[in-house]
């Protein structure tokens, strides 16, 4: 991380802009336009899309670096919270003294959601964890979506030995229960965000590959593929121009639903002790540390409450958005198996 600030910030904005333009580009086909029209009338879907954009915005705020002194930079989110000082230990939301029955100490400032055991502001930690969740989800998607789509299309289009080999690989991986495989991979590779993403990617591409393979098989029997073949188009052209655009909506739906799964799995992995490294803000870590806090008398509930709510609303919005997209692309509900 020794790049100048403006390069880092530029990279982040380019990434966001390219994602936006990719959506705009792909949304021009008639099928996508039909789906967009249906989606606009879906109140639940629109609301969840708004919620997700709020999370994306917070994640973006925490990624943009601004200079602060000669040797340290801080993110825009830190800058917004710069007036809030660190306390010594727990304090309840909006309390003026620290959280202790015997010797309450006066606090440095007020905290909307209180502070945790190390005296850090819970609201800031909860918001910072957005970025961790988005990074895990994003990195994992960058690993598993190309893998799953490529292998799925290849297996479904070429059949025969290609299909046999790919099917063997994914049925072997699917045989190992996914939580055990995740644990095994992270134990072998060591803790860390990239390791978690690799592990999640290895387990997640199987479902996508199976889905895309089935849909490719269905599509390649349709008349338009036969017509393309009769016109003398090469296999590569048929795959890129005809098959891929027609399976892309499944990839998007799988991506949205998969994202919610990754956020949930990260929290479970943190509980099991193979989650993100200590010191990285994450909802899983916060929920995990709340285990002992509720048993205190009186209970420390704000840490669990804040992290669980933040996680819940993101996962709920992603699930509802995934469902809404599925309804938009497939109003008759003929492909039930998308989520499984």
């Amino acid at each position: 991380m020794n790049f100048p600030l403006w390069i880092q910030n530029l990279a982040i904005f380019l990434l966001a802009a390219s994602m936006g333009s990719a959506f705009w580009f792909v949304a021009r086909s008639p099928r996508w336009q039909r789906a967009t029209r249906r989606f606009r009338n879906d109140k639940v879907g629109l609301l969840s899309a708004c919620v997700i954009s709020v999370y994306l915005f917070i994640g973006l705020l925490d990624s943009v670096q601004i200079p602060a002194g000669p040797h340290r930079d801080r993110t825009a989110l830190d800058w917004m919270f710069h007036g809030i000082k660190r306390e010594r230990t727990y304090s309840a939301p909006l309390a003026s003294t620290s959280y202790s029955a015997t010797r309450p100490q006066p606090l440095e400032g007020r905290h909307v959601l209180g502070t945790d055991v190390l005296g850090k502001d819970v609201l800031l930690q909860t918001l910072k964890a957005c970025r961790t969740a988005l990074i895990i989800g994003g990195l994992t998607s960058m690993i598993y979506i190309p893998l799953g789509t490529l292998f799925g299309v290849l297996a479904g289009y070429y059949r025969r030995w290609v299909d046999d080999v790919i099917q063997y690989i994914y049925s072997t991986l699917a045989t190992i229960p996914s939580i055990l495989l995740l644990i095994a991979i992270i134990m072998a590779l060591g803790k860390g965000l990239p390791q978690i993403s690799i592990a999640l990617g290895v387990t997640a591409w199987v479902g996508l590959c199976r889905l895309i393979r089935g849909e490719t098989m269905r599509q390649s029997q349709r008349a338009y593929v036969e017509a393309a073949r009769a016109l003398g188009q090469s296999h590569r052209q048929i795959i890129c121009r005809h098959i891929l655009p027609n399976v892309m909506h499944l990839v998007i739906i799988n991506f949205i639903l998969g994202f919610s799964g990754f956020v949930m799995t990260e929290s479970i992995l943190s509980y099991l002790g193979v989650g993100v490294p200590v010191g990285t803000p994450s909802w899983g870590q916060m929920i995990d540390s709340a285990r002992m806090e509720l048993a205190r008398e009186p209970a420390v509930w704000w840490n669990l409450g804040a992290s669980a709510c933040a996680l819940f609303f993101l996962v709920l919005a992603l699930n509802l958005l995934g469902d809404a997209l599925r309804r938009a692309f497939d109003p008759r509900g003929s492909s039930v198996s998308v989520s499984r």
Partner: protein
Amino acid sequence: MASYLIRRILYMVPIIFGVMVITFVLFFVVQSPTAMAKRILGPKAKPEAIQNWLHNRGYDKPRFINTQPGATWWDSQFVHQMKALATFDLGYSDATGESIARMFRQGAIPSLLITVPSFIFGFLISLSAALFFVFVRDSRTDLFGVILCVAMMSIPIQVYVIFGQWLIAVKTSYLPAFGFYLSGASTIKFLVLPVILYTLADLGGEVRLYRTIFLEEIHQEYVKTAQAKGVSPARVLFVHVLKNGMISIITLVVASLPFLIIGSLVLENFFGIPGLGNLTVNAIRTSDFAVVRTTVYLGSLLYLVGLLLTDICYAAVDPRIRFQ
């Protein structure tokens, strides 16, 4: 039927081999046995102690092929591991030295005591709830039900567990908050809360899945025929649709049956139930690679057993499959 099943079993052999290779690569190639020894014996362990530890477990042998003079070529870690797994010689825990087979036998009963009741309750409750939502389909109740299901799916299991324990055991102290003691009827009071929470955590997803399956059935031709003949909507749903939908549901459920023995990692650890889930969590926390390796392998075997049971079910209800 017999030849069909034999074919299915033979098809599993290469998959089991693949699983063995994956576990070997993860635990012997990516993570070298020397690093494993250092993690368990601590950073200050003497080289002799590490050497000794490796030798006792046979981890100091060459990895794939033994090229040393005077040794047979198959005297390697890979061949030994394969042989041990294939003959169910599970070996000993890296951390405590206990026999893994014994640890697993002891853990199976507490795990089953939690998972079997919650499986039965969960199945019955989600089946009835799904039928109810299909009965009132396209109404406000149905929409509310679907959103409730998705909301329940969006809460991670540890939040259910932490909150449930706090609410029922700590706040009201109706039930013990922690612990497990296996002795006849008095065991029940330790089981009630974990069973309730485990059922609850899975409920949303199950109801939604079953609802989708029944909705799929309701658009079939035979439903139209029955309605045209004047069968009441309730009878169509609870007799015709239920029977046909059960075929898909049973085959789904059967595949998950063998996993009941593994139990729940989070729940067992949280309530201190000495089941297989807890065993695995403890193994993760103590870097006990032998136990994790064995759990991965046994989990895969259980998955294959579930697959086989599904195949049997399909073949039993649909004769066409047997002749494919």
